[in-house]
């Protein structure tokens, strides 16, 4: 067990890697009632073609990582939710582009709940019958998202941007693609990606770190995991430019939804470098489009945006893009005004005073985020899987320079890489 002290944050993180490769992190929160634990695999919707060292390369159906997540909750003795409930824990899971996360939150029976979490995720139980049954449930989940304009405009943007990279494939897949999933394909994916060396356990709350590590050590010692080679995820080269400059979807909405963004061309960053680019880009976007900018106020006064207007930046070693927008009565006018302003700002650069204020805001937002055990666990894992460290965020913000952020903005804004997604009423 190794302790890492972050004085500025008044936090101490403990870590240990198990013999089978499982990384375990514990962040004690003295005085907290709750313990929140996430058990995550670096495996998400984009991992649809891969090769485990020494094995054959395979392609799997769209939506299988998410399907697998659903099916993990079933054990021979029944639904694992019931067991968590008996132990007073609230359990859940989610699948994103590049990870699948299983979690529980509890105020009692922490050791039992932790064992349950580890054991159910390390025990797949798929039958022809339970796989078929799940298709109906996930079919309804897909139907629910199809009716959700916010989801459609967001995914529409990624589809407009990416032609090849599987990030453009809906996380849940389609009714057709999940129709081809069998228990055999599920086991194949499970065996490749749920090896402990591809997984991370994070525990935060009122716990004693040594007790947690002892429990995990003993639990893992009872299980036999032969060493696994590296997993090579295969991605065909993504062409530069965008798939479609503009994509439109029809759904009944009170106002059109307009989301646009830039698809990054320089990729391959990871670890500290990726974290720094990520934070610099987010700071740049906030300086450009945040609620205290002249542009935001102008768009608001022109009645082109509402409180729904927002921006985000999503970055991974092999894809990265911004997503900007919200509800608007006039998408073309909105894009025109924003385009002009972006051209002005990229030419002039940000003002030092604005930069310092935005930096303060980001630091405050980061510290506030650390009040939430859920956010800590999720963000830590997300950064870790990309080779970065959540607890480096404060020093990185403190060390970013105005020139660096200006340069990042200029690099990110590449008009050849712009895509627009719209949802409009039929």
């Amino acid at each position: 067990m190794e302790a890492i002290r972050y004085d500025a944050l008044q936090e101490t993180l403990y870590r240990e890697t198990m013999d089978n490769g499982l990384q375990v992190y514990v962040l004690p929160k003295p005085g907290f009632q709750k313990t929140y634990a996430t058990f995550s695999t670096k495996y998400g919707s984009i991992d649809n073609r891969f090769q485990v060292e020494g094995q054959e390369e395979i392609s799997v159906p769209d939506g299988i990582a998410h399907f697998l997540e659903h099916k993990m909750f079933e054990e021979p003795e029944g639904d694992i939710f019931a067991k968590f409930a008996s132990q007073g824990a609230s359990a859940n899971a989610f699948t994103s582009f590049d990870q699948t996360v299983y979690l529980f939150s509890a105020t009692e029976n922490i050791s039992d709940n932790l064992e349950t979490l580890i054991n159910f995720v390390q025990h797949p139980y798929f039958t022809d019958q339970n796989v078929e049954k799940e298709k109906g449930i996930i079919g309804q989940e897909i139907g629910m998202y199809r009716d959700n304009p916010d989801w459609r405009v967001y995914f529409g943007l990624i589809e407009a941007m990416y032609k090849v990279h599987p990030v453009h494939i809906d996380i849940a897949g389609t009714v057709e693609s999940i129709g081809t999933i069998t228990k055999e394909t599920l086991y194949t994916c499970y065996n490749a990606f749920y090896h402990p060396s591809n997984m991370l356990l994070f525990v935060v709350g009122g716990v004693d770190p040594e007790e947690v590590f002892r429990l995990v050590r003993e639990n893992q010692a009872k299980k036999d995991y032969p060493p696994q080679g590296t997993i090579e995820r295969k991605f065909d080269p993504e062409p530069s430019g965008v798939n479609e400059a503009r994509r439109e979807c029809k759904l009944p909405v009170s106002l059109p939804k307009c989301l646009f963004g830039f698809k990054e061309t320089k990729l391959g960053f990871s670890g500290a470098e990726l974290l720094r680019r990520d934070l610099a880009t987010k700071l740049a976007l906030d300086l450009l489009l945040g609620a205290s900018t002249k542009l935001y106020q102008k768009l608001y006064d022109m009645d082109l945006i509402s409180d729904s207007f927002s921006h985000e930046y999503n970055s991974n070693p092999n894809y990265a893009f911004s997503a900007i927008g919200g509800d608007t009565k006039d998408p073309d006018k909105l894009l025109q005004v924003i385009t002009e302003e972006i051209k002005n700002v990229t030419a002039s650069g940000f003002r030092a005073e604005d930069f310092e204020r935005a930096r303060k805001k980001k630091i405050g937002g980061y510290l506030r985020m650390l009040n939430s055990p859920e956010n800590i666990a999720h963000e830590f894992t997300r950064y870790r899987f990309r080779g970065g460290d959540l607890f480096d965020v404060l020093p990185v913000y403190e060390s970013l320079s105005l020139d660096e952020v200006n340069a990042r903005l200029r690099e990110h804004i590449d008009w050849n890489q712009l895509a627009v997604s719209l949802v409009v009423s039929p």
Partner: protein
Amino acid sequence: MNKTIFERGSAGHIRIHVLPTNRFKTFAVSLYAGIPLDSETVTTTALTPFVLRRGTVSYPETIQFREQLELMYGAGFGFDVYKRGNYQIVQIRMDTINDSFVQSQESLLAKTFAFLGEVVTKPVMENNGFRAAYVTTERENVRKKLESIINDKIRYAAERCIEVMFEGDPYRLHPLGQRADLDNITPETLYEAYRNWLRQASLDLYVVGDTTLAEVQELVEKMFDLNRSDTPNYAPAEKNTQPKEVRTVKERLDVNQGKLNLGLRTSITYRDDQYASALLYSGILGSYPHSKLFMNVREKESLAYYAASRYDGHKGLMTIQSGIEIANYEKALRIIREQLDSMRAGDISELEMTQTKAMIRNSLQEMQDSAFEMIAYDFNRVLSGKERPVEDLLAQVEKVTAADVVQAAETFQLDTIYFLTGPKEE
């Protein structure tokens, strides 16, 4: 568990509730202003906080207002307008970093109160009203928000179900008001409505963080210039009348998935001794993944991705919501009604009792880790006039028997069935 004891006081006819603690990295501040739901005032009350957040005497321009928040290390500032029982509540929240994490010259808590005090009591004025431009744009903003309810079909169906169920009752009103009222609101009439609201509303100010009651009282006296002559209490909710017959309403929209919503009335409210039994009732029926609705509608029949119930103790209301294949309406409704019947018939296992108690216990205990959740729980006491510390409710939940749940079940009467269905005839 730790006892949660708010220290209470008052200043300027505002009730003050302070929980001194150093568990969090921030000061959480929440101001509740409640007035009875009334079609005459619902829209002006809803619009008021939108205008207040545009500018104050010291920060007349919205950009200045937001820059000030950023300078306070990105202090969180937000508000909500919602219904609780027969009241329309405006909640204004701030979340500011505790000074010990940043190099701040002045106390950030004092700055927070100076800011909040200005927002509430010193809006930027023009002639004898609010600044006209702010009223105009925020009126449109609220209009857009009301119109956008239809975008999210889950929410839309839930709102429609309530409107149908509470026809003729103020509870039918949307907390953001009525679209038709917006046109007639002027800067002058809104200002007058705001003054009346500030005079008449029940005001409660909460602070959780590293401070004391004396410090907060002093800050409120200094920063909140309200000129109030009274500290009005909330009136407890009256007993619900029993529904005469079940109403069924079907509406059509261009949706892929049907949304089935049920509304039930109960005579049990937060004040009642049976409140804990009602929590168990809703929990066993549909609040958790081990509950009857989830197990039968989703897991057994694969009819839905979500099927859940929610109990509102301030109104004596329970709602059930589910997203289903349109063709499965009859079947899903039958299965949901079977669950209601089985609860009344006492088909409640010992396991369901222990699981549900454990889940309720967990959610009550984990509230202690979130400043705003502790505040929200304590506000139940203010609203209902019923003193029920978390420890008491925990003890009451433990004592509930299956027979008590059946007794509670008898008070839950189905009132409304609402189905949002697709455009075509089935």
